[in-house]
């Protein structure tokens, strides 16, 4: 069924304007979780690609550094219209929301010395810190049966949060060992 849809879809060429607007929507709707909206718009609403193709792009992007949602945007644009599609999709995602956000943010910071605003921002950032910790915990749950994974997560946490080492040092120090351990354990398992 997905293949039949794929054939139908490949016949029409997606307009660059539609790409721009589509990812502008993803960006504006995506409070906290842009991924949900990226899938809803690209797969369900526009039928630019099917679930299988979307999952493949997601896997690639999770494997890469940088904001994953920007990577998804770029890959979908690239898949549909090549390099110019990639640029258009990313521009749609970033340009307008960034400009508006920076203007609002800059304005807000002009008044950041006011006690009321200071208190509001303090409350928001306390809550936002909690959301980030919760996101990390949720990501960790699927790995909880692997004791070495928990160990390396704890080491990365300690290296960054407690010792204040530069990230490059923490990653270069831990990544080779962690990958080697993952290789040994999966070789044993198979």
């Amino acid at each position, binding site marked *: 069924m997905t293949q039949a849809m794929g054939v139908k879809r490949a016949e029409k060429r997606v307009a660059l304007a539609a790409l721009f607007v589509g990812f502008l929507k993803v960006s504006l709707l995506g409070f906290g979780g842009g991924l949900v909206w990226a899938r809803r718009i690209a797969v369900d609403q526009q039928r630019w690609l099917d679930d299988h193709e979307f999952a493949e792009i997601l896997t690639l992007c999770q494997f890469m550094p940088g904001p994953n949602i920007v990577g998804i945007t770029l890959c979908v644009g690239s898949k549909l219209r090549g390099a110019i599609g990639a640029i258009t999709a990313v521009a749609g995602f970033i340009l307008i929301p960034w400009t508006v956000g920076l203007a609002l943010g800059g304005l807000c910071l002009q008044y950041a010395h006011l006690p009321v605003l200071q208190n509001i921002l303090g409350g928001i950032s306390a809550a936002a810190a909690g959301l980030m*910790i919760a*996101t990390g915990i949720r*990501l960790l749950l699927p790995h909880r049966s692997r004791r070495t994974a928990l160990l390396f997560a704890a080491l990365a946490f300690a290296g960054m949060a407690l010792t204040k080492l530069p990230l490059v040092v923490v990653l270069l120090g831990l990544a080779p060992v962690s990958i080697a351990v993952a290789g040994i354990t999966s070789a044993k398992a198979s």
Partner: protein
Amino acid sequence: MNSPSATVALVAHLALLSSISFGGFPSVLPDVHNFVVANGWVTDREFANFFAISGVVPGPNMILMMSLVGLQVGGIPGAVASALATFGPPCVMYYTAYRLWDRFRDMPWQRIVRLGLAPLTIGLVIAGGYVMARAADTRWPSAMVTGAAVGLMLATRLNPLWILMTGGALGGLGLL
């Protein structure tokens, strides 16, 4: 505002960090925090403010947060350059990788590298939250807000925006 060399140093640092930001930009937040605070460009409080503002504005939050840091260090040019440094290098990598994807899609090493990197990036995301909590939670009531946010986010399917707004409202009422 600081000297132009400060902007250059910030942008170079952001470009380096974005190139190694496996697991997204939250994983490099502690490093950015330590870097800009140690250089005296941004205070703990201001960094927490940037975090709060970028959290309630829709759109690319982390790019916006780094732009606010850049705005503080080098004005509008600093903001634009910081945004580019945050998403530019990863975009080049995404594009290249997407083109090469077919060649290494079924390689077993790819799964192993991912298994090895995943716990590290998760530990770094939690460290990011911890460092931001340290900057934001000056007294025990705000620490309780952080704790409650963790609990609500894990236990309910509430839209995170409500949690942020509740935190802001409690702060605005002078309860924190």
